[in-house]
């Protein structure tokens, strides 16, 4: 069992946990966090595969992940803005079910 395989399996596991969170979590902020966890899983899978494919490291997935990190931050900011707006409109007295 080499390290790259371990890292890629962890990436898939992070993706699955994030998907579970997106489906099951009830609070919107938890859903946003779960989307980010999915993103981290995908990035980890890409980086592990870049190391795995040959002896030298493949720079193309690294560049894709760099782009993806910035886009994920921007998407998170947009989602959080929408969440705050929704919270303002729908009132603040609703309880959060512990999901």
């Amino acid at each position: 069992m080499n390290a790259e395989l371990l890292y890629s399996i962890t990436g898939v596991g992070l993706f699955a946990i994030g998907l579970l969170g997106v489906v099951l979590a009830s609070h919107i902020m938890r859903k946003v966090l779960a989307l980010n966890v999915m993103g981290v899983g995908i990035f980890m899978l890409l980086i592990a595969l870049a190391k795995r494919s040959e002896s030298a490291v493949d720079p193309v997935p690294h560049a894709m992940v760099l782009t993806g990190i910035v886009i994920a931050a921007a998407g998170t900011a947009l989602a959080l803005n929408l969440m705050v707006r929704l919270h303002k409109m729908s009132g603040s007295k609703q309880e959060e079910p512990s999901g």
Partner: protein
Amino acid sequence: MNLEIAFDLLLMLSCLILAWMSIFAASLFRCIVFFVCLGLLATIAWGQMGAYDVAIAEAAIGAGITGALLLAAWNRIRPAVADAEPESKSVEVNEQEPKEHV
């Protein structure tokens, strides 16, 4: 060699546990803190994989800026959370200086 594999195993196991906790932890504040920790652990992991550019970017953007964004948004929706959560000790501390944690 064995030590490296053991380190990788520990790192990956803690990544998975932190990922679970960052979605399903008891309070939203803990979720955010766990998520920032997950970002930092992912930074270490990508340094292990030789992706130093990505590790720097993740430490700065994924853990830093995203954590700040999440805390700022949490600060905006906090009263509802404070009503729902009985354990409001840390929340009270936050109310005195809300900018500290953002």
